[in-house]
């Protein structure tokens, strides 16, 4: 199909435009022009004289030679690249038992063709019907690159089967079915030369066969069996159906198709009604059956063509050429649509430099070009004929512009929605910046600029100085307060005057312990509280030891045994025979529970291996209640509660439980003393309790106790003084800072100010 406007050829396989000079399609590598006969020089064949008489050539070939003789592009290389193709691959047929008769035929024929060329019957035919059938019946060869469309292969296989059965026969070498129609051979419409057919895709060859069949039918007419006549008619119908515009088909093909119709009509076969071709859908492929064929004279011209050796043909077949840049003639540009001209590089440059107001006008020109002047191919797609007669709405306006011009009932767009550039607002490159955005940009620029401005680092030392000075001052004051009573005895303070009832009760219970009675002492305070707990516990232990009691130490903490020894070493008048250390009691509350119910079983011996329970002092102790008293020394309220909850239930009223606790635990242990009956018989609390007890008892060194009490008092007073003064100062500063924070704008307020 040659486009007369652009001098391009449309590929019959893929439908894409190619240069008129091209022989193979640059997209699918299908042959655009049929191969010439043997007297036409083949590419690369120097022996063949190109100056053959033109009368021997068909008209279309003569035309091509005249047009392209001077301007034939040198797109084909001089040397044929070796593709490694083997003739056998093309000629090999399926030798399996399932092969069709056509395949067997092909095998019979191709063997001879390899050595001697085509058989005589084939040569004498002048057409290559059988060869075509053999080619068509041959198994699909992946190397045959002319065949691009697998659907065409399937179609051609069906056609080939038909052709095999109905192909005109040769003479004696032909099978019977072919010999029967040998008479029709001479009058049969030759389709193509074998060269052309083998170069043409199979669908095209099949179309030619269809024409030849129809031609054969036309010539033989009554000689054909009915089934063959019907087949020929159907083939003729297929060949003439879905006709494309004549200008899209090669001339030789269009002439053949017309000839087929004429012959079919002459034979009295029913012709398909001519219908308007269905409008092509976008992207629709043009199948070989859509292409009209050339008139009969083309085929007659081909009778003179001599068959060509298949092997030679295959050798001469041009391999697919890589895409080669071809300089199109200048006149092609003149045929460029106007709308395409407007988008040429020169125009684009103008667009860039022009002002924004030129764009709408330019776009208007483009729109006019698109809407007003349609390219031919688009014009051809207009569904004018598809509109039903009378129209759906005769009152509807007729469309006057665009691809739907002349049609009624077209949905019309409101004027405002037309995409005409002049209706659009000015679309320029100018940004509209609001004041808020400008402020934000300035703020961002300021931030970025500040990133690179070095700032003086904060002096960390200076910031830390006040807190360190304050700490040192605090420490010195407290140290001075602690040492002063020891250094200056006159600064000592009198002991507490009031004796707490709980401490008094403890003293009274201790006074009831008889000499030699065992007293269980639970040492359950942490080493850090040694100062306070020893101050509280030593007067009680001294009192007990002085009365001749036997102290049995036990601890639920791992550091307890060591503290017990430390405590025992500081008591007054301690005798090792009256002090036993059971050691560590693991398990916390669970250990206390089991120890309270079975002390001998849980702690059989002392850690030193001493058989404590066999001593005379403890021989009578089998249960915890057998102790004269239980004294618990702890600073932790939880530990105190554990002893109260686990041990107190197994103690009778004769075995009091005394608590020696830290001042921090007193508030929570005091209620146990105040219950009725009291669960705790007495409480000695901290340094104050120890001092009070020592004052009552008089056995612990009064001086030491007085010194501790005074030091404690002075430290507390110093701390109270500092906390009061510094607290007031910090309170004032803190209120001031809090007020300043309240007066500062919030982040939300800043955002509101900016957005308002």
């Amino acid at each position, binding site marked *: 199909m040659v486009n007369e406007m652009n001098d391009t050829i449309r590929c019959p396989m893929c439908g894409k435009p190619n240069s008129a000079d091209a022989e193979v399609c640059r997209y699918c590598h299908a042959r655009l022009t049929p191969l010439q006969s043997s007297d036409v020089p083949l590419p690369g064949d120097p022996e063949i004289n190109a100056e053959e008489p033109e009368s021997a050539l068909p008209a279309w070939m003569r035309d091509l030679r005249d047009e392209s003789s001077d301007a034939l592009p040198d797109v084909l290389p001089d040397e044929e690249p070796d593709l490694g193709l083997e003739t056998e691959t093309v000629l090999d047929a399926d030798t399996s038992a399932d092969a069709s008769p056509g395949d067997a035929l092909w095998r019979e024929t191709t063997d001879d063709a390899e050595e001697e060329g085509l058989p005589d019957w084939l040569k004498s035919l002048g057409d290559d019907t059988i060869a075509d059938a053999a080619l068509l019946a041959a198994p699909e060869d992946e190397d045959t690159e002319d065949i691009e469309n697998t659907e065409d292969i399937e179609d051609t296989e069906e056609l080939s089967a038909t052709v095999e059965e109905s192909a005109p026969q040769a003479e004696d070498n032909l099978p019977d079915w072919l010999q029967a129609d040998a008479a029709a051979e001479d009058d049969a419409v030759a389709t193509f030369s074998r060269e052309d057919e083998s170069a043409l895709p199979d669908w095209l060859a099949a179309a030619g066969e269809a024409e030849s069949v129809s031609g054969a039918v036309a010539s033989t007419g009554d000689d054909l069996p009915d089934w063959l006549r019907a087949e020929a008619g159907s083939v003729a119908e297929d060949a003439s159906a879905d006709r494309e515009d004549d200008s899209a088909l090669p001339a030789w093909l269009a002439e053949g198709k017309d000839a087929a119709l004429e012959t079919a009509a002459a034979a009295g076969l029913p012709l398909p009604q001519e219908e308007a071709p269905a409008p092509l859908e976008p992207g629709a492929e043009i199948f070989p059956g859509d292409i009209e064929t050339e008139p009969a004279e083309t085929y007659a011209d081909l009778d003179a063509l001599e068959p060509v050796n298949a092997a030679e043909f295959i050798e001469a077949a041009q391999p697919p050429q890589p895409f080669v840049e071809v300089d199109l003639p200048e006149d092609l540009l003149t045929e460029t649509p106007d709308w395409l001209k407007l988008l040429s590089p020169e125009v684009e440059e103008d667009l860039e430099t022009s002002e924004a107001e030129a764009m709408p006008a330019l776009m208007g020109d483009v729109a006019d070009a698109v809407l007003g002047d349609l390219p031919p191919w688009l014009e051809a797609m207009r569904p004018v004929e598809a509109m039903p007669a009378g129209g759906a709405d005769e009152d509807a306006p007729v469309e006057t512009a665009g691809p739907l011009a002349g049609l009624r009932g077209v949905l019309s767009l409101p004027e405002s929605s037309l995409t005409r550039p002049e209706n659009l607002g000015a679309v320029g490159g100018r940004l509209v910046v609001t004041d808020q955005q400008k402020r934000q940009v300035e703020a961002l620029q300021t931030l970025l600029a500040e990133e690179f401005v070095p700032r003086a680092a904060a002096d960390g030392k200076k910031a830390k100085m006040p*807190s360190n000075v304050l700490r040192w001052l605090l420490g010195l004051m407290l140290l001075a307060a602690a040492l002063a009573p020891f250094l200056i005895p006159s600064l000592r303070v009198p002991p507490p005057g009031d004796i707490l009832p709980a401490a008094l009760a403890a003293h009274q219970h201790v006074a009831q312990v008889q000499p030699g009675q065992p007293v269980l002492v639970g040492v359950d305070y*942490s*080493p*850090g509280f040694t100062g306070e707990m020893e101050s509280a516990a030593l007067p009680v232990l001294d009192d007990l030891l002085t009365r001749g009691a036997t102290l049995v130490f036990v601890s639920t903490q*791992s*550091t307890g045994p060591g503290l017990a020894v430390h405590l025992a070493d500081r008591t007054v008048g301690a005798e090792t025979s009256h002090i036993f250390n059971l050691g560590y009691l693991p*398990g*916390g*509350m*669970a*250990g206390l*529970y089991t120890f309270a119910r079975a002390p001998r079983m849980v702690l059989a011996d002392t850690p030193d291996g001493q058989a404590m329970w066999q001593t005379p002092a403890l021989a009578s102790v089998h249960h915890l209640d057998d102790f004269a008293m239980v004294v618990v020394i702890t600073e*932790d*309220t*939880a530990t105190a509660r*554990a002893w109260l*909850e*686990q041990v107190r*239930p197994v103690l009778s009223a004769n075995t009091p439980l005394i608590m020696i606790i830290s001042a*921090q*635990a007193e508030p*929570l242990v005091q209620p146990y003393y105040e219950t009725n009956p009291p669960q705790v018989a007495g409480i000695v609390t901290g340094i104050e309790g120890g001092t009070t007890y020592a004052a009552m008892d008089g056995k612990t060194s009064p001086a030491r106790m007085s010194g501790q009490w005074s030091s404690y008092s002075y430290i507390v007073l110093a701390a109270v003084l500092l906390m009061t003064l510094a607290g007031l100062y910090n309170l004032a500063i803190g209120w001031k800072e809090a007020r300043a924070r309240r007066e500062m704008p919030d982040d939300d307020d800043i955002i509101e100010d900016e957005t308002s």
Partner: protein
Amino acid sequence: MSVTGSGVSDILGLIFVALFGLLMVVSRVLKQPRPGRDLRPLPALNRLRQAINLTVESGRRLHVSLGRGEIIHPRTAVAFVGLSAMQKLVEDTAVSDRPTIVTAGTGPLGILARSSLRSAYAAANQAGRYRATYGRVTGLTPFSYAAGALSVVRDETVAANFLVGSFGAEVALMTDGSQDDDTLTVAGTDNVVAQAILCASADEPLIGEEVFASGAYVGAGMLHGTSLLTQDIFRWLLIAAMVGGALIKMLGVW
């Protein structure tokens, strides 16, 4: 280990525990309380969550301390709460450049801390990042434990401290150490003395049973939220019982 030994109190105790458990489970089926909607806001835990997000971004770490609760002691309960909350927090910070450090004051807590850490890293698909040194015992006595934890606070680029467990007065050393480094300290304990100290020294103290609510607020488990609901119900019952009993006693009825 019954306190009173009487049968009536045992039965009452059994009923109490059974009702508590039943209510926990039933509440879970009926309604799952959600922080911010059904639970009152706890600023301490909100700040902790913010601080954790910042620790990951700033390349610092979270320090969790579990106290020194004995394994067979009521003090262990608050340590378990700390473990549950810690596990959830570590899951969220498992991909941080600096992993969370967990300190404990007793051997069993150290083992549990490591186990929970391992589980947390596995749950966050970061099992390869776990190291045994992330959970450590810093001391076996109260002040040695505090001193060891203090070294973690000062030297390990800690951004936030979450102290939840049974502490004593030694917690003051830990909170004081965090003041100088400008780190956030969120602390809660069951020890009344330590609570008083934390009120003065911690940035965000958890008062009383708020420490037991930390699991629900960080999403540590299914029943944490319903436990809070159940605790609230029983708290009201106790209040009613105390007020009613006091009135009855005052009126001389019983």
